[in-house]
């Protein structure tokens, strides 16, 4: 089985800074990590590889420094790692991102399964998975917790509004993996082996035969017009009186604010 895992480099949770002029995230080698949601997809791929002899190809679109997340994938069991990188891909929105990923995957060739994270910790749209499936014209299911291969079908389980949905999906298909699925750390030996055995392939616009009008700003149908930081103000209100009075006044305060239904 050929598995493709899409992963993204994000700015570490506590280090998000926005460039005031371009409204984009300020990225550096030091503040960037693999999108934590993608670890669940990588781990699922590793799990499937053990069950059904498979090969895993990890793909990311991003600048040269995103290479680092591909090394994470290689340590977690990926057999091949591809960086889709070209200055013309910069400032792609989710649609343009999905198009680039789609063209990259077409060049990789035959596949049975594409796994994505549920969402990302920096842009957090949860759109790329479904959009990529549309781009490639294959079925998709989001928020998948369990995944099995059954001949030419995949049997998947997802949680939705208090129900467990069990779905059969024909291959090839794309799934975004739930953060409720398992994940793990790569061992030191796996990290060493990844670097000893593998290298990273880098493909630009020409290599994936992408249409330059469908990538980057030109190919983006949405853009960030303005970013307004939200400031949360906290007040502390001491409620006076004996416990009975305190309870009463707390109740009326909460009631006034419509916090009790």
């Amino acid at each position: 089985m050929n598995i493709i895992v899409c992963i993204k480099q994000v700015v570490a949770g506590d280090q998000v800074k926005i460039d005031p002029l371009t409204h984009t995230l300020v990225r550096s080698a030091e503040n960037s990590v693999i999108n934590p949601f993608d670890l669940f997809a990588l781990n699922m791929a590793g799990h499937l590889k053990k069950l059904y002899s498979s090969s895993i190809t990890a793909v990311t679109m991003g600048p040269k420094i995103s290479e680092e997340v591909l090394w994470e994938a290689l340590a977690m069991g990926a057999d091949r790692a591809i960086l889709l990188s070209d200055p013309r891909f910069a400032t792609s929105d989710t649609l343009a991102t999905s198009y680039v990923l789609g063209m990259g995957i077409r060049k990789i060739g035959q596949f049975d399964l594409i796994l994505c994270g549920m969402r990302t910790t920096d842009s957090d749209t949860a759109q790329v998975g479904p959009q990529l499936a549309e781009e490639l014209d294959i079925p998709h299911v989001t928020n998948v917790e369990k995944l099995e291969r059954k001949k030419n079908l995949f049997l998947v389980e997802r949680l939705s509004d208090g129900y467990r949905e069990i779905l059969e999906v024909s291959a090839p298909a794309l799934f975004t993996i739930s953060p409720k699925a398992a994940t793990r750390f790569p061992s030191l030996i796996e990290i060493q082996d990844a670097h000893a055995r593998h290298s990273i392939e880098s493909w630009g616009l020409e290599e994936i035969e992408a249409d330059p009008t469908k990538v980057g700003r030109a190919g983006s149908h949405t853009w960030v017009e303005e970013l307004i930081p939200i400031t949360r103000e906290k007040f502390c209100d001491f409620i006076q009186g004996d416990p009975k009075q305190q309870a009463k006044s707390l109740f009326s305060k909460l009631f006034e604010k419509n916090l009790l239904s």
Partner: protein
Amino acid sequence: MDFTLSIQQKQVRRMARQFAKTELADIAKEIDEEGRFPWEVVEKMGPLNFFGMQAPRKYGGAELDTISYCLVIEEISRVCAAMGLTVAVHNSVVVYPLSRFGSDEQKAKFLPSLASGEKIGAFCLTEPNAGSDAMAIESTAISEGDSYIVNANKIFVTNGGVADTLIIFASVNPRDVKKGFSALLVERGTPGFEIGLLENNCGVRANPVSSIVLTDCRIPKTNLLGREGEGFKIAMAALDTGRIGIAAQAVGIGQAALDASLKYAKERIQFRLPIARQQAIQMMLADMGTMVEAARLLTLQAAHIRDQQGDLSGPSAMAKLFAARTASKVASMGVQIHGGYGYSKDYPIERYFRDARVTEIYEGTNEIQQIVIARELLKRGED
């Protein structure tokens, strides 16, 4: 000269940092208070190769370079110095001398279970009357057929309460300790082997530091590490490497103290301003940051020299001396920045302060490092 870490080294550091955050951050305070060895975490560290970081592949080790090794120790110690100590001692003064001086049979027998973390290692040199003066040991190993009969009273044994495989230093020649100084591999459970009381230490409390007593313990001669009389050389080689790990532990504690102080200084309001706006506090923070960075560079330099197979004694003693003093000083300044809260168990800075102090003592006190450094400096020729 290139000061940047390789992608691989950064990846190792990221993994260790993430692991420590996920598995140790929430329990570090509690295991310190309870003096509890966190087996549940140790069981997770084994499969990730934290117990065989530099051991040969053949025996299940990861063959990391020493810089990566230091980065791991720093990241673990930054969250929990007691576990940093467990891992540093196990890897550097047990697994390493066994890998270097052990026979093929010894390596095949002892290394795989140590490298996988299934068994924990300990290094037993110190005795009641032999601390800095290691040559004063009174433990004996008397030849009897194909065994030694070992009598030893070892104290302050890191990992002592949980160790399965121990390197014990004793003399095969009680009349001439120096000539007879030898290293023996001893397994817990051997008749006559006893774990003494756990030390009630000031810091690194989650590490079960204990005494180990051997009474007429029969140890097969096949467990002699190196040759008879090579024990002192083995101990010193182990400590030259071990000190780099302790230096890395100290850097981790210093970094933790700096992190906590930066956070607190921005939060604490006095005179209607965060105290971080006071120049006096800024100057402390600046000195703390500078010292920690200098300690880290000295430590990684010693690690680099080890990877290049250079002469290690001087550089590792310098790294350990400077990093240990830095950790103590920076943690003490951190307490100062926290004011009264720094003296309370409600904030982690008091734990860093207690944990930092011992880095100036074990694997050779500051004064012993100074002796080593001075000796190296004085024997150098003039340029």
